[in-house]
């Protein structure tokens, strides 16, 4: 068989022109799933039959000369916290096991309209709470590059699916780094857009002021393409920014000449030395490409992790109150309603989710609100102010995505704070609501991939993708 296109852009072009069929492309990805999914466990559900039907419809449309979308025939995996009409959506939690949503998330609708073909729903840390997928009720996902190591999280299944060739692109959600960190650990591109750029309608809520949907892809261009498809105003999400999706594909090849790139002089420490070396390499590449590297300070980001681990659980404790055994999911038997709530939630939630519900409930309870949640929101303001000041001097800021490369299973499960530190560089963008993305850039310890994080101000996706395009070109020369 002739080799088939692999990137989303190439697949869509080839399928649209009729030079390959969507069915051929799909079968190649299904074969990859058959070969390795038992080892990797990227998916909670594989939707082989509906994917084949969808591919056949697209091939029929192409044959009939009908217009097809910009993602025609592109195999897509969806994090299992995005609602899919009639298709089980679990959030990797026993409390939602078996639940079939009565509607599609806006992103799901937009991707289907563009011709993308859903191959399955991917594994995650339960309710997106974690950095390794070890908190999934259905067992961890393994890193396709080294099965003894975590893929990162919480969108570990979506990152692994793209890294293993199970799908050309995938979607994740990012509340504190849950797209960017697994992208870094699996060696793929991951994007968290500006808060409000992509509709959250149909995304099962974790921390509503921080959650944002974004893509995983093998190339920066594919990530730009998918972001364009899912971005833009949606009246079903009251936090959706009322403006159209930006043109990001053209930014990828624009270069960085005369751009100003920030180097954070007071970056929190603790990153592996190889990771910091790759960051220095990235600055060199950008300087050689005509960018000016400018020192900036973000004095409050050392408090970002602390603020996040109050704000996110507080919002989660409120959002997860809906799992009460009444309208959907699990119900534990009990003769009285309060006993039913307590028993249902005890049986349905895993340890990390319980821990965060408890912490959040405590932080919001009478007498503690001002001391914890109120203070955390003020720290959040200081961090946003730091970024505002920095972005008067620079167009984008570079940091590592993750302090460490993919780590072995069990390394951090017993110590919640050690696990939380995985997100030290990614959390600030969520608190500020800014876009950020991870681009694979060489390797670190054990020859495992390192991701460089590019951060930009609100709606700064265009400068962010310009930087990403240059780093990607340079990284091709490294491997």
């Amino acid at each position, binding site marked *: 068989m002739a080799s088939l296109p692999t990137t989303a852009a190439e697949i869509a072009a080839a399928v649209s022109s009729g030079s390959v069929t969507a069915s051929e492309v799909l079968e190649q990805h299904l074969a990859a799933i058959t070969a390795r999914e038992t080892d990797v466990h990227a998916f909670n559900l594989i939707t082989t039959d509906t994917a084949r039907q969808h591919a056949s419809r697209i091939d029929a449309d192409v044959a009939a000369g009908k217009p097809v979308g910009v993602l025609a025939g592109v195999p897509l995996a969806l994090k299992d916290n995005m609602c899919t009409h009639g298709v089980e959506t679990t959030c990797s939690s026993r409390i939602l096991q078996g639940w079939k949503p*009565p*509607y599609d998330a806006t992103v799901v609708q937009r991707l289907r309209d563009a011709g993308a073909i859903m191959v399955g729903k991917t594994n995650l840390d339960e309710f997106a709470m974690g950095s390794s997928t070890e908190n999934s009720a259905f067992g961890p996902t393994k890193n396709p590059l080294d099965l003894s190591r975590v893929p990162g999280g919480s969108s570990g299944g979506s990152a692994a699916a793209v890294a293993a060739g199970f799908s050309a692109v995938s979607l994740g959600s990012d509340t504190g780094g849950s797209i960017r960190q697994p992208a870094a650990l699996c060696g793929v591109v991951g994007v968290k857009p*500006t*808060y*409000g750029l992509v509709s959250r309608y149909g995304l099962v809520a974790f921390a509503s002021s*921080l959650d944002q949907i974004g893509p995983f892809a093998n190339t920066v261009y594919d990530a730009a393409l998918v972001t364009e498809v899912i971005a833009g105003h949606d009246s079903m999400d*009251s*936090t959706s*920014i*009322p403006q159209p999706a930006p043109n990001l594909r053209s930014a990828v090849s624009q270069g960085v000449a005369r751009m100003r790139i920030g180097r954070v002089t007071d970056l929190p420490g603790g990153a592996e030395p190889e990771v910091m070396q790759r960051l220095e390499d990235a600055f060199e590449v950008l300087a050689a490409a005509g960018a000016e590297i400018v020192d900036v300070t973000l004095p*409050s980001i*050392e*408090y970002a*992790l*602390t603020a996040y*681990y*109050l704000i996110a659980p507080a919002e989660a404790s409120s959002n997860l*109150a809906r799992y009460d*055994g*009444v*309208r*959907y*999911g*699990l*119900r534990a038997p*009990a003769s*009285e*309603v309060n006993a*039913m*709530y*307590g*028993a249902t*939630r*005890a049986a349905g*939630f895993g340890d990390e989710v*319980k*821990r965060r*519900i*408890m*912490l959040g*409930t*405590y932080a919001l*309870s009478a*007498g503690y609100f*001002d*001391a*914890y949640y109120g*203070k*955390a*929101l*003020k720290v*959040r*303001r*200081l961090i*946003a102010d730091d970024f505002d000041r920095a972005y008067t001097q620079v167009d984008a800021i570079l940091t590592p995505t993750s302090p460490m490369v993919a780590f072995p299973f069990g390394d951090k499960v017993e110590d*919640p*704070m050690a696990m939380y530190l995985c997100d030290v560089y990614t959390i600030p963008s969520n*608190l*500020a*609501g800014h876009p950020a993305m991870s681009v694979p850039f060489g390797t670190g310890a054990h020859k495992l991939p390192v991701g460089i994080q590019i951060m930009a101000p609100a709606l700064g996706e265009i400068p962010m993708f310009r930087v990403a395009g240059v780093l990607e070109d340079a990284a091709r020369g490294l491997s």
Partner: protein
Amino acid sequence: MASPSSGSSISAADVIKVSRLARLDIDDAQVEHFTQQLAKVLEHFTDVDALDLSDVQPMTQAYPLSNVLRQDVEQPCLDRDEVLAAAPHAEDGRFRVPTINGEA
């Protein structure tokens, strides 16, 4: 009333009270487990006491938008039977729950 400092440590009694507020049954072993782990996370929060936050406005929105309203016109909504079909127990077009306040 002076608010407690963020350094005040969480007790087992606090954990039991919070579990009731959260409608989350926990056993004795979990009370001990959560008391230790939550204390550890809250301990980190004392770092924030180094900051002067007296004149800082809390940030509640990542991208400020206000008065997000739509026209008051009928729109399609979810299918009632489909929604009820996902419930653990439905009856006569409604969600069925166990006894509330001892009333059958």
